[in-house]
């Protein structure tokens, strides 16, 4: 008995030693890790109760400002007068859920806590100077509203960019959320609202415009066309592919068919106008090969860390592994008697997959923002500008504290190929699948896409990308629209569903008249 009760005493000592060891670990050894943990909201909290600068659109609409409150140590809370319209860009500042979007990315500038912002106030140390910064976005309220109105209550995203500068003019995803629900002082209510948003199957907290990737479908044919023009020895009018209803891959693999079993072909101009799967599959697999396709996709920013001045952006993907090299294309000629102009194209084990990725299928994934950047690069002579949502930060006196200068992110293609592609896209908007985005008095180019999701029942993402400018002038806006999971799956879907939204955005950008 005595021995056993002593065992109990030993067990007690051992358990307590473990407890104290763990208390030491959590509060001494690993304390720094916990301080840096993303779930730790103390830095936000320190900033929460202070006054912060406004966040305004390029045309002066206030999207976020600080309201004075009287609540203990908290002197201000954030208010978002535009409700859900800019929620995915502006984000929110929450007492207990941290900060998101620009509220997080520009936390220091808004709070005026940067050293140089503080330093300016040293000389008038005894004057209570306002050091907060105002963040001016590139987004324009008229375009953003037009995008939200045109999309309506359909799940999807609309992104508009100024091709020459990378200024994001509109970036909207439906569904969005009301950031005012998350900026309140009642922690319990905020947590309930946050959890309700998390539990919503449509995930309104997620800015799908730049944080979610989708199959780009036929809009990706623009990248394949750029590769064809720059690297494939192909022009808009030569060669001319025969009319066919399918592409049979080399060396083997299942055939790639056209939408609805239709036949198509023709030169690159016509193939793009009709969005011909068979032609583009053949261009990718038999005229370009893996190296040229991957190189071009990466020049367009695929497989790279995304470039946008917002946190948690998603990167677009283009598959890079097509298996081992087998032979040049000529080896597949029946007798080798009639050499192909592209006969030295390397054929790999999985060239059939390359045929799929060349038309934006298989594992090609892109954010709506990125597809707008693709259109913008074509509109901007092949230069893909770094996209940004912040134009400048102003100090309290109205002076410019910091300005975001336009910069080239990627050189995606030659100016010549870009010019050819613009011509082809204008043709698509005049004669092809993107006619519904045509605006009178403007030069509009476009490309539709339909990314099939399933067949029972048939549904697909409806895409359109494009640009618009005054005739003879450089394009002033590039647009990408995706409407998610629309019923039906024909090549017309993108043109019928997404193109009218793009038109509304373009009309808003150029204003009445």
């Amino acid at each position, binding site marked *: 008995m005595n021995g056993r009760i002593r065992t109990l005493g030993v067990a007690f000592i051992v358990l307590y030693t473990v407890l*104290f060891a763990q208390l030491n670990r959590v509060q001494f050894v690993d304390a720094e890790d916990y301080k840096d943990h993303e779930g730790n909201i103390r830095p936000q909290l320190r900033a929460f109760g202070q006054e912060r600068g406004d966040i305004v659109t390029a045309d002066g609409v206030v999207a976020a400002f600080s309201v004075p409150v009287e609540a203990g140590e908290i002197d201000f809370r954030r208010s978002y007068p535009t409700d859900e319209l800019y929620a995915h860009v502006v984000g929110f500042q929450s007492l207990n859920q941290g900060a998101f979007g620009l509220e997080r990315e520009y936390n220091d500038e808004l709070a005026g806590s940067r050293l140089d912002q503080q330093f300016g106030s040293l000389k008038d140390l005894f004057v209570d100077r306002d050091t907060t910064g105002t963040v001016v976005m590139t987004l324009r309220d008229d375009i953003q509203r037009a995008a939200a109105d045109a999309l309506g209550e359909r799940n999807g995203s609309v992104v508009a960019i100024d091709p020459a500068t990378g200024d994001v003019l509109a970036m909207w995803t439906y569904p969005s959320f009301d950031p005012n629900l998350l900026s309140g002082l009642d922690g319990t209510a905020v947590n309930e609202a946050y959890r309700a948003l998390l539990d919503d199957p449509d995930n309104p907290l997620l800015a799908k415009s730049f944080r979610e990737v989708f199959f780009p479908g036929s809009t990706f044919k623009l990248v394949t066309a750029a590769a064809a023009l720059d690297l494939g020895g192909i022009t808009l009018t030569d060669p001319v592919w025969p009319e066919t209803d399918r592409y049979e891959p080399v060396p083997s693999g299942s055939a790639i068919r056209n939408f609805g079993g239709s036949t198509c072909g023709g030169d690159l101009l016509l193939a793009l106008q009709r969005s011909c799967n068979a032609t583009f599959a053949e261009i990718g697999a038999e005229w370009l090969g893996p190296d040229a396709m991957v190189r071009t996709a990466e020049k367009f920013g695929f497989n790279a860390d995304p470039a946008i001045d917002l946190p948690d952006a998603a990167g677009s993907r283009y598959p890079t592994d097509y298996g081992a090299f087998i032979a040049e294309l000529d080896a597949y000629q029946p007798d080798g008697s009639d050499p192909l102009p592209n006969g030295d194209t390397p054929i790999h084990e999985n060239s059939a997959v390359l045929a799929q990725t060349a038309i934006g299928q298989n594992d090609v994934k892109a954010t709506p923002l990125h597809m707008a950047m693709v259109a913008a690069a074509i509109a901007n002579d092949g230069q893909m500008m770094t996209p940004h949502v912040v134009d400048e930060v102003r100090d309290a006196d109205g002076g410019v504290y910091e300005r975001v200068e336009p910069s080239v992110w990627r050189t995606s293609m030659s100016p010549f190929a870009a010019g050819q592609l613009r011509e082809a896209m204008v043709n698509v908007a005049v004669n092809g699948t993107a006619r519904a985005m045509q605006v009178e008095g403007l030069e509009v180019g476009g490309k539709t896409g339909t990314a099939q999701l399933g067949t029972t029942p048939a549904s697909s993402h409806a895409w359109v990308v494009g640009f618009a400018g005054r005739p003879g002038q450089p394009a002033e806006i590039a647009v990408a629209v995706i409407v998610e999971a629309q019923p039906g799956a024909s090549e017309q879907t993108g043109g019928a569903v997404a193109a009218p939204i793009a038109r509304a955005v373009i009309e808003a950008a150029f204003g009445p008249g």
Partner: protein
Amino acid sequence: MTTVGAFGAGTPRVKQDDDERWWFVVDPILIACALFITMLGIVLVFSATRGPATELDPADTSFLERQAFFAVVGVGLAFGAALIDIRRVRRAIPLAYVALIVLLVGVLVLGVDRNGARAWYRVAGFTFQPSEPGKLVLIIALAAVLAASAVTVGRLLVTLAVAGLPILMILLQPDMGTVLVYMVVVAAMIMMSEVRARVIVLLSIIGLTAVIGVFQSDLLADYQQNRLTVFLLDDAAVEDLPLAVRRVAYNAEQSQIAIGNGGISGQGLFEGTQTASDLVPFQETDWIFSVAGEELGFRGAGVLLAVYALLVFRMWRIAVRATDQFDRLLTVGVMAMFLFQIFQSTGMAMGMMPVTGIPLPMVSYGGSSMITSLVAIGLVLGVHRRRFDYTERH
């Protein structure tokens, strides 16, 4: 009889009148520890529930008032428990046991659901959890069954039957945390009884096999199993689990962040960020240690753990000195209950124990737990008081 320490009962002696002096009769250290923890607990519960107090919206004191009320009732009942000689009311034990079983059956039918378990009665604005005082009923009942000079297999089977019935009822609620407390208490009491060593080994093997068997079988729903094992996983693995389990992992993570941010000296009472922002759910009950860790830091949380250690040590000391097997087993049962609840509740908050809700004795908010813990200490104080009575009655 064996002896440990200066006041040991090695030489059974007839009680002398001058031994009635109060410091012989009570254990002032045990009482001081219990009162300290209780008062600190009330403050922590207030901190966890006061809400974002502002001039317009004053602090919520309803939890504070209720917890203080429970403490006063608990101290009063503990006083009574220390005074009665529990051995003299042995005849009432079967009655109390039957009442417990009735209450446990009744709660499955009449009880209210809370956090997925049907463990509470709601009476006149208060909730009552029968499995809490049930711990004491079981400890007393088992002490009575096991208090023999040799525990036969038959007696052991009675023990297992007596313990198994309430455990089964609580398993049906289902309240995994309380089931664990019951099992630990039963195991400790059997081991401390006069049962042969090889029987203990055999029982351990059977018990271990049963636990593994339960985990391998379908008896536990996936989410229950996940809850118990999620604390072992890293962040990436947690991402793939269902939402309900990720929430559990989230609680554990937020609790650790809170404690980690307390650092050495803490953020200060009522200054805890995680606490004030309602980031740790159930922080006034199961996760109360995170409030102590964040607001009082290593100093405060360390002192709390140290005072608990002293409290448990005093119980152990009383168990060693008890001159009666029933009293000793009673004390061991209470000690095991405290030790396990402290270890599980603080260990869970620090991320080294499974996430299963167990109140931290005398600190977590809740009347059933508070009163049960205090009465348990009263019972142990009674054992201490009676430690010289043994020889007198023989």
